[in-house]
């Protein structure tokens, strides 16, 4: 055992541990750009009153993408089936309103818990074989099972017709969910922000640090006695829980659920959003969702039939050129231009 005496050089001078502490605390501190981002988000509520429906969709998608970023960017687990948790949350929220209560927060909590439990139950499948390909297939498989389950259980879910009769009570008993989506947007924003805060706190905790370490070097993490599997599973369930909450928001703001919430394109879209926005810094999902929805909105306004084509093109450009290079593109072009001008 290392005894206290072995630490005596340190105890003599308190400075190094202050430096250590300062260095470690720095990582969790809010940066100016983060304040700016959230101020702009809050301003969007007041200055774009006629776009609240679109903005709600963005907030929901952003929250969903945030949940996927947790497992891809922090646990290093890739998934093609995160839509299963989103869809389960959407259904649970809908069923809660029909059979239990129309109170939105109850539905939100139950939906999140149900999705979290599904994550906890299916997560161990991802640990058996830790290759990316098996994980893609396992998550895809789970999502297909959930989709087919919802399709078969038509007595409960309404099957292909969807779940009708979803009625959501006013938020906190006071704010009616209106046609313009104003209450809905405020609700989505607050829930998204709350989950962001929790996620931010988790990834900057010692637990979050251990996840980074596991992703960086699992062999060393094991030899340090870090329970690798348990740590990954915990984050996976937490991520599923957030995805479920995002699904609940969709149900509660649109008052409708259909099998579409479990469709493959949901899982694919959210992965695409993370490719656009980047992984591993928590804002990738939010920024990506904004970019994705605005592009989608814009392309479908110009060419209603071919927006998917343009989306695909953007995706290819981002992946092939790379975000870092895109950011540096103006400078690179300028430098090349200058060089050619000289010769």
């Amino acid at each position, binding site marked *: *055992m*290392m*005894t206290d005496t*072995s*630490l005596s*050089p*340190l*105890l003599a001078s308190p400075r*190094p*541990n*202050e*430096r*250590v*502490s*300062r*260095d*470690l*605390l720095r*990582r*969790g501190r809010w940066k100016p750009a983060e304040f700016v981002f959230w101020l702009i988000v809050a301003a969007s509520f007041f200055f774009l009153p006629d776009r609240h429906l679109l903005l709600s969709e963005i907030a929901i998608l952003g929250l969903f993408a945030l949940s996927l970023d947790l497992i891809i960017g922090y646990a290093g687990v890739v998934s093609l089936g995160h839509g299963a948790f989103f869809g389960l949350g959407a259904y649970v929220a809908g069923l809660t309103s029909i059979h239990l209560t129309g109170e939105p927060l109850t539905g939100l909590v139950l939906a999140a818990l149900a999705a979290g439990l599904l994550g906890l139950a299916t997560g161990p499948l991802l640990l058996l074989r830790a290759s990316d390909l098996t994980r893609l297939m396992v998550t895809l498989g789970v999502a297909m099972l959930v989709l087919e389950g919802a399709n078969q259980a038509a007595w409960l879910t309404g099957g292909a017709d969807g779940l009708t009769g979803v009625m959501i009570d006013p938020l906190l008993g006071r704010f009616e969910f209106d046609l313009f989506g104003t209450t809905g947007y405020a609700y989505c924003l607050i829930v998204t922000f709350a989950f962001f805060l929790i996620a931010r*706190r*988790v990834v*900057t*905790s*010692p*637990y*979050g*640090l*251990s996840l*980074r*370490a596991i992703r*960086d*070097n699992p*062999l*060393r993490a*094991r*030899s*340090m*006695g*870090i*329970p*690798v599997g348990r*740590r990954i599973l*915990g984050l996976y369930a937490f991520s599923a829980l957030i995805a479920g909450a995002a699904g609940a928001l969709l149900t509660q703001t649109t008052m409708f659920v259909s099998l579409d919430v479990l469709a493959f394109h949901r899982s694919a879209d959210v992965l695409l959003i993370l490719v656009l926005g980047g992984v591993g810094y928590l804002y990738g999902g939010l920024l990506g969702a904004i970019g994705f929805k605005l592009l989608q909105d814009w392309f479908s306004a110009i060419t209603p039939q071919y927006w998917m084509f343009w989306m695909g093109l953007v995706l290819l450009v981002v992946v092939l050129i790379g975000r870092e290079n895109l950011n540096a593109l103006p400078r690179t072009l300028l430098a090349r231009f200058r060089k050619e001008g000289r010769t």
Partner: protein
Amino acid sequence: MTAALQTIALEKRFGGLVATDKVSLTLAHGARHALIGPNGAGKTTFVNLLTGVLPTNGGQILLDGVDITRKSQIQRARMGLGRTFQINQLFGAMTPVESIGLAVSERMGGGGDFWRGIGTRADIMNEIAGLIDRFRLTEVMDQPTHLLPYGKQRLLEIALALASNPRVLLLDEPAAGVPEAERAELLQTLAELPRDVSILLIEHDMDLVFSFADRITVLVNGAHFAEGSPQQIMSDPSVQQVYLGSEEHA
């Protein structure tokens, strides 16, 4: 008194190849014990058996008298068996403070703490600062590990193992690849490791072995070949023939 670490007729076969041939080895408490042997003698396999990276085909491993033969890597680490790696196994994107902080947090029961910020527990900070100081990492503590000079990375490799507060520490060629200019610092740090940690040094470098160890075991072809004090090993003609003769004095 039980040994810090003991193997009894430990065995490992890869198909027809016997990599570890019924090796019985006793590491005393507080020992500075070196395990040497020519290339391919099975030193690395032996370490992998001790740490649980590879399953054994027979024999027993006792840590402080407790049978750990069937325990997982993580369990062994938690029970006080630490190791360093021959090839650095570090967290490249993390800084030394973060890496050591992680190891200390895990040991002090704060590793799964998901609600507290990093750097808020004074007891953990003290431990980290002590290790940073002991391993001479102060100037580079906030730089990404993959950018550190190789000698500093080697020091961090050992610091991470010691941060888990092991009772037994396996050092797998700690000086391998360290440039001459950084060697002295590393050897000095090794010499200053706490005496209450029992150390098994697996090493190729004879200068380091003879300056560090108070007991030496020679492994040849996966089997226990000779054991004794550095003087006995150095003067043993059979050891010189199989090992020192061909390797060191070539």
